């Protein structure tokens, strides 16, 4: 891909810019569709219909209309807020969400940067979001926002541990941190996917990763930083207009990012489930995106089913359930590999 672009444009800076922007071409329509999908899924699960009027077929353009509305809204900064940090926070959160896309392999031909420490890099940059959340929550100068920010920070930091351990189990089998190579190792039929290897340890690792990922992107049942019945809206309480949209956007971008990582690590990424059937780079994008979207849909499904945990129970789940199980998985996989 990069070589192709280099041949076309013959200018390094331009090539890098184009490569960097490519995921945006996916993310923006994805976020619009995902927000619409979330509404529709929630509506149908609740025997409703959801948005039906805007745009014709099942209100498909509702999110676009909402975006336009948010764009036109007055940009309100509370008088008591710390203006610099208040304005900076949404961008940091978005940067953290978007930076992960640099190392996500969309297809065998396209990856933003095929770095050797791909998965490690993604784990590192997503932790940047915590800083943004703390910044936004503190700068709002609202006690509820601060509560939300504190909860978010504690939660994301805690859940990084089981998720990293679950990833480690896969990395141990693959023997590499590069996502593109991990994908290459899973080619062939779907039983070559890591989720079916070393059964059931990697499967358990996947469950652990998925639960931890839910917590890291603040989805139900781990949405306590935003818990609308407790903290109103947590750290986004004081935000409105486009800045609020940035938070929302980042949340959905993050949702896909963690789903994409799960798809890559456990479900063969851009590999077709049926060997060479519908293989190749172009179909690879299709497989990758559909695997990601299925996982995103499961996140939504869970959200509209479950109540939310309390702060201490959330910590309990992380430290006393997920972390020991993840450790057990890592050790079991290690022993299996030694045998």
């Amino acid at each position: 891909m990069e070589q192709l672009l280099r041949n076309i444009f013959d200018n390094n800076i331009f090539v890098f810019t184009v490569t960097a922007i490519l995921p945006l071409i996916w993310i923006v329509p994805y976020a619009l569709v995902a927000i619409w999908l979330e509404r529709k899924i929630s509506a149908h699960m609740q025997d409703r219909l959801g948005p039906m009027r805007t745009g014709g077929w099942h209100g498909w353009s509702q999110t676009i209309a909402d975006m336009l509305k948010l764009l036109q809204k007055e940009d309100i900064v509370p008088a008591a807020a710390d203006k610099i940090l208040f304005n900076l926070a949404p961008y940091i959160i978005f940067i953290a969400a978007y930076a992960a896309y640099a190392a996500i392999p969309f297809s065998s031909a396209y990856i933003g940067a095929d770095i050797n420490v791909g998965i490690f890099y993604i784990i590192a940059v997503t932790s940047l979001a915590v800083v943004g959340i703390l910044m936004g929550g503190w700068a709002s100068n609202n006690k509820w926002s601060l509560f939300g920010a504190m909860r978010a920070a504690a939660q994301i930091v805690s859940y990084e541990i089981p998720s990293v351990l679950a990833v480690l189990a896969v990395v141990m089998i693959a023997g590499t941190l590069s996502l593109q190579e991990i994908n290459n190792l899973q080619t062939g039929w779907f039983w070559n996917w890591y989720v079916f290897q070393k059964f059931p340890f990697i499967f358990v690792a996947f469950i652990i990763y998925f639960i931890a990922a839910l917590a890291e992107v603040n989805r139900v049942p781990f949405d306590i930083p935003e818990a609308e019945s407790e903290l109103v809206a947590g750290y986004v309480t004081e935000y409105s207009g486009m800045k609020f949209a940035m938070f929302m956007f980042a949340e959905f971008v993050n949702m896909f990012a963690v789903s994409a990582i799960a798809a890559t690590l456990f479900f063969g990424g851009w590999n077709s489930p049926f060997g060479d059937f519908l293989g190749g780079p172009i179909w690879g994008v299709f497989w990758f995106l559909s695997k990601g979207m299925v996982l995103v849909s499961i996140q939504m499904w869970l959200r509209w089913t479950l109540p939310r945990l309390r702060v201490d129970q959330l910590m309990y789940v992380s430290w006393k359930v997920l972390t020991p199980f993840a450790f057990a998985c890592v050790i079991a996989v290690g022993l299996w590999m030694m045998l």
Partner: protein
Amino acid sequence: MNLVDILFYIFAIVTLVSAGITVYSRNIIYSAFSLLFTFCGVAGIYVLLNADFIAVAQILIYVGGILMLLVFGVMLTHKVINVEIKTGILNIIPGSMITAIVGGTLCGIFMSTDWLIIEGVPPIKSTTNEIGTMFMTKYLLPFEIASVVLLVALIGAAYIARRDKTSKQSV
């Protein structure tokens, strides 16, 4: 001046300016948050030095761990209800003396070192494997000592944070 040079200067400027804010800002929160950019700038310079693993570890540990701890500390030790958290200027004379001594020493070392300059950029290759191998062979003892120290710190922290068992539990 090629792309890598431009990037280097960008990262250097980001690092220096944000480090300056960290030091000179009267608002502790600003100091803490500008550390974010310092760490990221340093990580960028690591990348330019072909140390990809170190760069990522820098972000993960310093931003995800240490900066978080700092921000938490600042927020929790003060009345967080108010945005105004200011520092005063204290100990000007001893401070400037120490600064002068440290700065002078560093400058002296910088001038007297015979810098090794290599022609051309070496090919990028992963440092992860080598770091892993080194940890498990040559530097096993320091590695293990570090991990034991961390474990001790962990236990100590858990001990301090533990609720006093003798007093009646209320929850």
